[in-house]
């Protein structure tokens, strides 16, 4: 099979992994002395975007899409009638190198179907990373998918070469994994995440020790393949962040696959729901919100308003908030004011009182903040308006009910 045919198949097979981040690696540069190429700036660069609006930062491919597992939501499951291919180690190295020199990518994100055994598959992934790093002195970004049942020694070796490791939790609940991914096991997935975290902790305690996944670990959860609600999803995310110090949880709206089994839906991907989950996740990671604050009851995040606005509307006792008095952490909870602007407002306060016009220059979303803030020269007239009224005013316009949802879904 030609290299381009393999690439066609194995990139198609890899697209369902949402992560393409190349940030968080330590700064590295090539001076040309070792014959190597590649650099990392710590920031990560998106080199392109595809028409689905997703960024292309890494060459994201599977080493092979032969797979003995039968995960119902996966296009590469053993019972799926997809074309199959397998790269050699040398082919992946060459593709990475060639793409990198043309400035198409920041590095490699390599995953694989499970062939023979977990250990064998993991060994193959590690071999690619080892060859890139030790033979070709490649200093670009490497993200390796970790096979949860692989020997911890292999995971440790993967961490020596990779900037980031990830183990997919796959689905939000134990029961869903048991039902839809019969060969996977939440217990061993958590153990693998735990062993990576312990390695990361060890490295933090001994900074001079050998390198271990300096960009940390991440995971991915599929949204919409099972019936789990957003409360369950955010609780699972919170559990994973707390337990394994993940850098990111990625939410991947389930995309229907060819010859879909009956166990998973045929509906189009729930993209707005996925978007709301990312927004909520951002609030968990950066803003000090807890899952319980964002989703106090069972159900899904609101689609008409973003999660921060929804929280503010449900917690009016904090508002309107006097920006000349509140601390930065609370200011960042105002809908329309982000972390950076919260800090800028507090910085400005040291020089003088904050006025309405300042917020406009800081490019806050003025319509959104209007009912929630008090400044030296502004008090909201809407301060006492009901949350329902504000929601209608600030939320997305109501859509007419669709009479034939089946047609729209088809």
């Amino acid at each position, binding site marked *: 099979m030609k290299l381009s045919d393999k690439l066609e198949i194995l990139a198609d097979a890899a697209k369902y992994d949402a992560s393409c981040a190349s940030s968080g690696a330590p700064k590295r540069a090539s001076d040309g002395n070792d014959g190597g190429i590649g650099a990392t700036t710590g920031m990560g660069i998106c080199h392109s975007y595809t028409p689905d609006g997703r960024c292309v930062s890494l060459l994201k491919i599977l080493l092979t899409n032969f797979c003995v597992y039968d995960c119902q939501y996966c296009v590469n499951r053993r019972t799926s009638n997809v074309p199959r291919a397998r790269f050699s180690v040398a082919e992946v190295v060459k593709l990475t190198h060639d793409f990198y020199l*043309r400035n198409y990518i920041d590095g490699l994100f390599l995953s694989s179907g499970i062939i023979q055994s977990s250990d064998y598959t993991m060994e193959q992934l590690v071999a690619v990373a080892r060859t890139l790093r030790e033979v070709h002195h490649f200093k670009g970004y490497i993200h390796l998918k970790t096979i949860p*049942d692989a020997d911890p020694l292999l995971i440790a070796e993967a961490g020596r070469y990779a900037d980031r490791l990830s183990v997919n939790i796959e689905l939000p609940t134990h029961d869903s994994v048991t039902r839809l991914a019969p060969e996977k096991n939440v217990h061993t997935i958590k153990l693998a995440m735990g062993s990576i975290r312990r390695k990361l902790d060890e490295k933090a305690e001994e900074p001079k020790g050998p390198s271990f996944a300096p960009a940390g670990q991440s995971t991915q959860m599929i949204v919409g393949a099972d019936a789990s609600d957003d409360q369950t999803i955010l609780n699972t995310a919170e559990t994973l962040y707390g337990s394994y110090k993940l850098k990111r949880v990625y939410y991947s709206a389930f995309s229907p696959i060819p010859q879909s089994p009956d166990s998973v839906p045929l509906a189009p991907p729930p993209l707005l729901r996925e978007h709301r989950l990312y927004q909520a996740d951002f609030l968990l990671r950066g803003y000090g919100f807890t899952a319980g604050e964002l989703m106090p009851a069972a159900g899904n995040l609101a689609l008409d308003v973003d999660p921060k606005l929804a929280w503010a509307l449900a917690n009016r006792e904090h508002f309107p908030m006097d920006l000349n008095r509140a601390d930065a952490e609370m200011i960042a909870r105002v809908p329309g004011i982000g972390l950076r602007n919260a800090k800028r407002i507090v910085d400005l306060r040291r020089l003088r009182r904050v006025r309405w016009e300042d917020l406009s220059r800081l490019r806050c979303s003025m319509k959104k903040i209007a009912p929630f803030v008090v400044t030296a020269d502004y008090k909201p007239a809407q301060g006492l308006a009901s949350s329902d009224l504000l929601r209608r005013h600030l939320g997305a316009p109501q859509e007419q009910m669709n009479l034939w949802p089946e047609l729209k879904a088809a």
Partner: protein
Amino acid sequence: MNAAAAVAMVAAGQPLVVSSFLEWRAVARELLVHDVAPELVTWNQVGVLDADLFSGAPDSAPSVDNVPAGLTPTKPAPHIPRALMDMLQSAACCRVPDRWAFLYRVIWRWQHGEHDVQSPADADGARLHAMVKAVRREEHDMHAYIRFRERPIEAGPPQFAAWFEPRHDVLPQVAEHFKHRMGGVTWMIGTPEASVMWDGASLHHTGPLMSSAADLDDAGEALWLTYYRSIFNPARVNAQLMQSHIPSRFWKNLPEGAIVPAMVSNAELGARSTGQAQAVGRKSGATIPIAPADAQPERQQPSKLDECRRCDLWQYATQAVGGEGPKKAQIMLVGEQPGDQEDLAGKAFIGPAGKLLDRVFEAAGLERREIYLTNAVKHFKWEPRGKRRLHKTPAQREVEACHYWLDKELASVKPKVIVALGATALKSVIGNGNAKLGESLGKAIRHEDRWVVTVYHPSYILRVPDEEAKHQAFKVMVDGLKLAQSLLERPPEEPPA
């Protein structure tokens, strides 16, 4: 230009012509020292003619010597903070006609105590921030959207060439980025204003050498387009989102730009129902003939304890942590529950509390390996606090649910003495949810044919802030363990001293 002559030129009504940030900085310092107000200065960019129609280029610049009277230095040398200087330097790359005049206005205001000029909430500050952002954005876009094409070997170096049309003056700093990225591989980048070449050892900056993208037939580009088509998920087509990420001026120089319209219209015509690329769907497929039983990975059978669902704690924990120690130990130590470290490692008392416990053992003259160590609750209960897991005391129903496992351990190990660490352990061991730590602390009580000695939990010592109280609690623990040991020698009917 000569910075020293700047003041005289301003006095003579002549424009100041600068070509670089360093030059501007030297001139600006000189003007600040002489307290020359921004309104008095006209700045011209080198190469920008007729910036001011009424100020022709001067025939000869006034020399330093004929500084008019009254223009002696009146201000101390300016101290501009590094952060502001960095911003000014970035903003200087922004192609706006009045860039030098604006930067001088900012620095002049700062020098006159208007420090909010650095804040984005100030009108000038907002513009300064916007200029810096535009420049950084341009650098970033150039890092991202330059596309190198490989030149044929017979053409000689550089091996790779790229064409880019930057909106601001960012080529020099972008060249540094690619120098580090490409290692020993040679390349050049052409822009309408200038070019830069990397020969593998040093950078060479020159005037414009190219006038458009190099027309090279690069086989690598076909593979990239294959990848680009395949990594796209047509079920998620959202061309608007893509356009919002990459401004339209970049698309014409991106090889993938040419295939986007067809991909979008195909996806919108029906391919969007599944995520698979069309070309892959046309190839013949194959299922993997393997029996479900053979596909199951080999893994250790999870223990009964790990499969325990008597309460909900398992959902938030990594694993259950069972007891550990000699099968027939005479002393069993019962703690509360595993902590963060224990949860990850699957072993009891290995975290900070475990380390403290080791010190207690040592002080009491006991060997850890002779004692059976376990917990009243086998899964870690916690609540999120920022990015950490904060220990949370288990509820009585969880303690009761987990008693099943403690009973099993007691039945199998048959210890003569149980040491209960803290209130939760005490409640569990004597089966009384109302038991109070204070009433039993340091004492031995008889319970179901065994001695139960109650001491503090080591976490209490770690938590209590007062040194004296720490010391006291440590002593209670040591004494308790000594008491436990002495009870081994004592017949059960004899009450402890």
